[in-house]
């Protein structure tokens, strides 16, 4: 009598445990799918600051960053990219690519104050990035060429604010 009752309890426990395992697998699958979409396909990012005026607003835009083209090596001059800052790896910056490896770049060292310009050739595996607002941008003119491996994604779409909703032009 007692043994039968115990057996019944055990069966109940077993089915409950099975259910818990099944649910947690579905949950883990959902989280993994979220993570993989975020790292390999696209992810929303909030950017703000004066360096990309007038393309991006000062107060903050929500952008859709596409992660596939840097992996495939399809990022070229003119693309707006999200880059991990070489000065602080926990910070990410948005800039426009001006030149890829082998390009000759000429830039103003101190725009607004002098006309002194400087030119160089971008080394192998590096890119030259600049903000659209050259007067208030901390970019390759201060940091030097950026390794291609620091590029996180290509900005392709603006989600917010709603009046600017749409694909981001060149």
């Amino acid at each position, binding site marked *: 009598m007692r043994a039968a009752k115990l057996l019944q309890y055990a069966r109940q426990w077993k089915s409950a445990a099975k259910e818990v395992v099944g649910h947690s*697998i579905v949950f*883990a*699958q959902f*989280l*993994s*799918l979220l*993570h*993989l979409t975020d*790292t390999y396909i696209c992810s929303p990012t909030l950017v703000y600051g004066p360096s990309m005026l007038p393309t991006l607003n000062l107060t903050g835009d929500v952008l859709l960053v596409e992660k596939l083209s840097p992996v495939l*090596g399809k990022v070229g001059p003119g693309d707006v990219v999200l880059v*991990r*800052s*070489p*000065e*602080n*790896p*926990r910070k990410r910056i948005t800039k426009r690519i001006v030149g890829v490896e082998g390009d000759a770049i000429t830039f103003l060292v101190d725009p607004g104050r002098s006309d002194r310009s400087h030119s160089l050739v971008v*080394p*192998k*595996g*590096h890119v030259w990035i600049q903000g659209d607002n050259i007067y208030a941008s901390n970019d390759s003119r201060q940091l030097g060429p950026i*390794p*291609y*491996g*620091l*590029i996180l994604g290509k900005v392709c779409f603006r989600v917010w604010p709603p009046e600017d909703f749409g694909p981001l032009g060149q």
Partner: protein
Amino acid sequence: MAARGFLWSSAKKCFTAGLIGLTVSDRYASFMAVRGSSMSPTLNPNNKNSSGFVFDDYVLVEKFCLAKYKFSRGDVVVFRSPSNYKEKNVKRIAALPGDWVHLPSLDTVRIPEGHCWVVGDNAACSMDSRSLGPIPLGLICGRITHVVWPPQRIGRVVDGKNSILPEVEVDILEET
């Protein structure tokens, strides 16, 4: 009909396992083969003697350190090569931001903010910061903690503060 159901369920299981495995290897830890002898006493020690079969070392790469980018001198790290983003290199961190590095050939170099100085344990054949310059910390994609294969060498990777190249002298910035 039963065969089809079985196929479908096993395909679903494979898909789930793949998804979860990829996520874990992305975020937490993964396995990797190390090729080349640039880290020779620590990894791939017998690559020099050509006794026929030479196996690569397989190592465990942990990625928790990427959450804060906190590293210490002596850590063995995997990073993307600055000159070719598809290539990954394994080297040891010798100096962190703010340190001074004295080189025999060049003069003294100060490591800029957010960069580090990496060297291979095998000074003779290693392409490291002596030719590449300081590496941005953002290129680092993991820290090697254990050797998992071959079986006779399973164990922790030693934190070799004293195996850092003698000719690279590092002035350590005291954290106050």
